[in-house]
């Protein structure tokens, strides 16, 4: 018996059980393995009933094995596998007519998403209803930047191949004017494209338009990318007031130090020294005692320096060099990329016991340039 089910049973009086079964079913290949164990085969059709009968007879089924091609087929054609295959086929059948992916090749200035949304909105996603020729024509008409377009359906992907026209920058250019970033005087203009809004010798402020992104062709205004190399003198000024007689606070040399050591912001050691100075300057210094996060011990040192007031008499001539140095440093701190200094000068304004110095540095700045795109 090639096809069927083999049972391995365990129980006493096997002969009696086999006799009962044989009254209803045809049994095959009955082999007595041991006193209480035997195997036999029945046809696939009777397997279920035999199983039930054996249960009724209180015979223990040790093993139930399907034989022949049917178990293989049953495994292959398992309901789950069959339903999965059917479901997949249905899914493929349902999906296959539709375009699921859009691929755009060759776009540079055009937006891929824009092209895809245009095609999606205007054409069916059913590839059997979609005419690639009409997509090509529509894209060509919609986007004047396109010089060549080909559309093909590959599987469930619509491939759009685009070649863009080589148009001058003026068409796509960013039409923004050149604006001055500094206060200063225009000294040189080398206009490349656009129209000048200022001329050499003009004083401009930061934010003023220097070059407009268009030119006038008769009465017609044509937009172009503003491009020019402009040199200008930029003025950096700072004012300092010098008092000939003044009171200055200077350190006497005496100081008191307090230390606080903390762990997790909780003070664990503190020294408290009284500060009995009338005038003092407080300097705080914090540092980590251990350089790891396991024990974040921190030390806070507070130093109190005693101060005293001193009457100082200093003429402007004596302080001039120091003031100039101070003013220069202040200017250069604020001026970024100060490369070319054309001139430096200062003006003085005398008051009652004081002199105000206005220090100016003239710097050359270049805006725009020939190498700019």
């Amino acid at each position, binding site marked *: 018996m090639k096809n069927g089910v083999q049972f391995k049973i365990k129980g006493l009086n096997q*002969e009696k059980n*086999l*006799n009962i079964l*044989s009254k209803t079913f*045809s049994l095959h*290949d*009955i*082999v*007595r393995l041991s006193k209480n164990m035997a195997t*036999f085969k029945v046809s696939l059709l009777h397997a279920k009933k035999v199983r039930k009968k054996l249960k009724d007879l209180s015979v223990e089924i040790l093993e139930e094995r399907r034989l022949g091609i049917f178990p293989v087929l049953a495994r292959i054609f398992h309901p789950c596998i069959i339903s999965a295959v059917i479901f997949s086929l249905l899914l493929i059948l349902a999906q296959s007519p539709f375009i699921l992916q859009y691929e755009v090749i060759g776009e540079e200035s055009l937006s891929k998403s824009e092209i895809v949304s245009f095609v999606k909105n205007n054409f069916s996603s059913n590839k059997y209803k979609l005419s690639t020729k009409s997509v090509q024509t529509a894209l060509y008409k919609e986007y004047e930047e396109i010089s060549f377009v080909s559309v093909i359906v590959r599987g469930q992907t619509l491939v759009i191949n685009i070649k863009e026209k080589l148009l001058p920058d003026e068409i796509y250019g960013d039409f923004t004017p050149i604006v001055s970033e500094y206060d200063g005087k225009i000294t040189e203009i080398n206009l490349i494209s656009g129209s000048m809004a200022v001329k050499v010798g003009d004083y401009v402020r930061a934010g003023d338009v220097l070059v407009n992104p268009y030119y006038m062709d008769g009465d017609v205004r044509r937009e172009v990318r503003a491009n020019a190399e402009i040199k200008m003198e930029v003025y950096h000024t700072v004012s300092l007031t010098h008092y000939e007689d003044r009171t200055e606070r200077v350190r006497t040399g005496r100081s008191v130090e307090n230390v606080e050591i903390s762990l997790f912001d909780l003070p664990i050691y503190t020294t408290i020294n009284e500060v009995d100075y009338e005038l003092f300057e407080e300097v705080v210094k914090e540092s980590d005692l251990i350089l790891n996060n396991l024990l974040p011990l921190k030390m806070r040192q507070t130093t109190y320096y005693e101060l005293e007031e001193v009457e100082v008499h200093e003429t402007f001539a004596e302080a001039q060099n120091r003031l100039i140095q101070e003013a220069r440093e202040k200017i250069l701190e604020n001026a970024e990329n100060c490369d070319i200094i054309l001139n430096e000068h200062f003006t003085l304004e005398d008051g009652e016991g004081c002199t105000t110095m206005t220090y100016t540095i003239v710097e050359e700045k270049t805006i725009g340039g020939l190498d700019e795109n």
Partner: protein
Amino acid sequence: MFNFFGELKRDIGVKVDEFHIINISNKLLYVEGHKGLTALSSTLVAFKVKSGRVEVEGEGLYLKELTENTAKISGTIKRVESF
């Protein structure tokens, strides 16, 4: 399944309750009209029949087929005895 004796009885009117044994080259034994299996092992297979008991001795015996009143015994048959 084709039943040789069944066909024969139908033709000549032999009584059904009698038992018949066919031994084929001591390799296969066909028993018809048994009343139930009484012993089964690799060396002995016994059946109850109307008039007594049939014993089959041999080696590597097993029941090729067993139905209500027929049986096919396969293996090396050494002795068949009816009591």
